[in-house]
């Protein structure tokens, strides 16, 4: 392996942290979805690194599965966001709770 295994895992960890921060800190449902995506990508990077380190191809096969799952999840998530928008006319995560919204 050209890139040491620990570096790949570190990259995965950093990506996961960034994704987590994005989920927790953003006030936009879309950005939460993007954060989730980043976390999924982070796990994919970890799998690829693992497959390279152990010489097995199953790791990279799992990565393809992750990509498929992520796509499906994004579709569902966007539909949910559209429904929420129809209810509350905003994409702020605060307004998902009842009586927590300060708009309108």
């Amino acid at each position, binding site marked *: 392996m050209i890139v040491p295994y620990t570096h790949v895992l570190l990259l995965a960890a950093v990506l996961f942290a960034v994704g*987590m921060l994005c*989920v*927790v*800190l*953003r006030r936009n449902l879309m950005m*939460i979805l993007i954060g989730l995506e980043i976390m999924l990508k982070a796990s994919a990077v970890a799998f690829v690194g693992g497959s390279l380190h152990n010489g097995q191809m199953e790791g990279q096969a799992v990565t393809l599965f992750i990509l498929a799952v992520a796509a499906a999840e994004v579709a569902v998530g966007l539909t949910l966001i559209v429904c929420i928008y129809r209810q509350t006319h905003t994409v702020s*995560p*605060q307004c*998902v*709770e009842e009586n*927590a919204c300060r708009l309108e």
Partner: protein
Amino acid sequence: MLDPVPLFTRNAAFGAAFSPLIAFAVIMIFLSGRRRAAAAVSIGAVGLSFLCALALMIRHFGGQAPLRYTAAWAVSGDITVTFGFMLDSVSLLMLLVVATISLLTQIYSLGYMAGDAGYSRYYGFMSLFAWAMISLVISPALLQLYIFWELVGLASYLLIGFWFQKFSAGRAGKKAFLMTRTGDVFFLLGVLLLLSVGSVDILQLNEVRIPETMGAGTAALAALLIFGGIIGKSAQFPLMTWLPDAMEGPTPVSALLHSATMVAAGVYLFGRLFPFFHHVPAVMTAALAIGAISMLTSAATAMVSRDIKQVWAYSTISQLGYMLMGLGAGGYAAGIFHLTTHAGFKALLFLCAGILIHACETNDIFEVGHAGARRLRFPTACMLIGGGALAGIWPFSGFASKEAVIAALAGHPNPVWAAAAVAGVFFTAYYAFRVIFVVAFPEKKSETDLPGHRPTATMLWPVGLLAAVTLVSGFFHKRMTGALDPQTAAHGHGAGGIWLPAACLALAFLGIYLAWREFGRKNAARIGFIETKPALYRLFSERWYLDRLYDRLTDRFIDRGLADLCKKSDDHAIDGFLHTLANGVAAWGRLVSGGHNVLIQTKLLVLFAAVFGLTLLLFFAG
């Protein structure tokens, strides 16, 4: 070893002690509304006590060995606390005195307290007092005596503050209780000290070899501590100002408790433990000194007092001082005899005062005289008899007992005590007859009838009986001394021969003459020789500023000291702690309850943090 107690004696002693207790329970539980029944039960019970006391007296007085019946109540190691009774000559005598005067005052109260709202409660408390006092008298050990000592103090508090709707009565009851309690702290310390070094049994304490077995220092300390309790209960200097205030209670209560029995309990205790105290010279000197100081200061205050009950109250303090002086000089029989006669004539004086107060509706002697109290001839004559006994005039009982005390004092090496006692004779005669002359020979009599009630038969009979007793009991001196203290009786007349009683009699007549000149004559000025010197008058009438001193002390150390400290601790420490605790719990609850009210993202954050922590844990510790 003592003889076993016959069954009759045992039953009589327990009957005398417990029948008032049963009466108290019955009255307080069942008879609160039924006044005649309450009075009947109470008088019946104390009458039974009287009969038992009389029977015991007839059977056992003069016997040499005391009759003792005890049961071990608490055993701890080698210390045994016993309960029961012990009857010897002095306790039989005191038992008869207590029972007689209780019976007479309760009969007197039928008339005096008639129409009062708390009639049943009054008789309940009188029965409580009778039980406590009788049980105190027959106690064989100091611990039992202390328990009943406190109960007597409780009964006194309840009876002084009987008319509790009057603020002054409640305050007087509280003052009496607190002052006697202060003395009782010392008493309890003495009892505990004795309990720790050996025993509190009176017979054992009175044994001859006690100072060797106990150690002279311990015996002296214990004796002085017990004497502290005696000072409190018998209203001696410096704990004496509660007794004049205790006159707020009904007059029969004053006659029973605060002249004849309760305040005499201190002197009685001294007599009970006389052989023990006799080994400790410090206590004997203390008794002499404090008795002398009390006697003179209270006689001085009595000379300027205008309230008839307060004059007799100061007189009680003074005569108790006499008794303590007699006992302190070693005159055991003299002191006990004076205790007995004083109970008789002081109760007589109080009951007569009660009749006059009831008839004239005032306590002030000048107003009583003006209202024409002289028209009540029988009570006034009885008061004359009582006053004569108090002043120590032959043939009244006070003469014999006072002579005995002064003879005992004359036998003491230090002449200052006898001189103080002799001076006291003059003052006593003066203040006693000042009251009698002001009441009997007023400046101008009112023409209208007496404003209050005339005395009923139930009020006059006890007074008459006590007057008769006062007339004859002086002649029982030899017999009583023979029974109480055989060694002294064998000596005959004490030191001083015949001239000492003659001198005292002359001084008493001098005091009466001075009172006559100032108050009794037709055109007398009616101003006492003390009142002509305003500084002295102020000093005496303010009770030698003792009350001011106590007020200042309680204000400084208790109100602004201890009470303030307690209040601050209560406010800041206890209340503050509780508030902080409650607020903290509420804040924590708000925090936790708000946990579900946050945004989804905060919950997600918590979730991530938890998972991250778990991962670390598993990674590093797994």
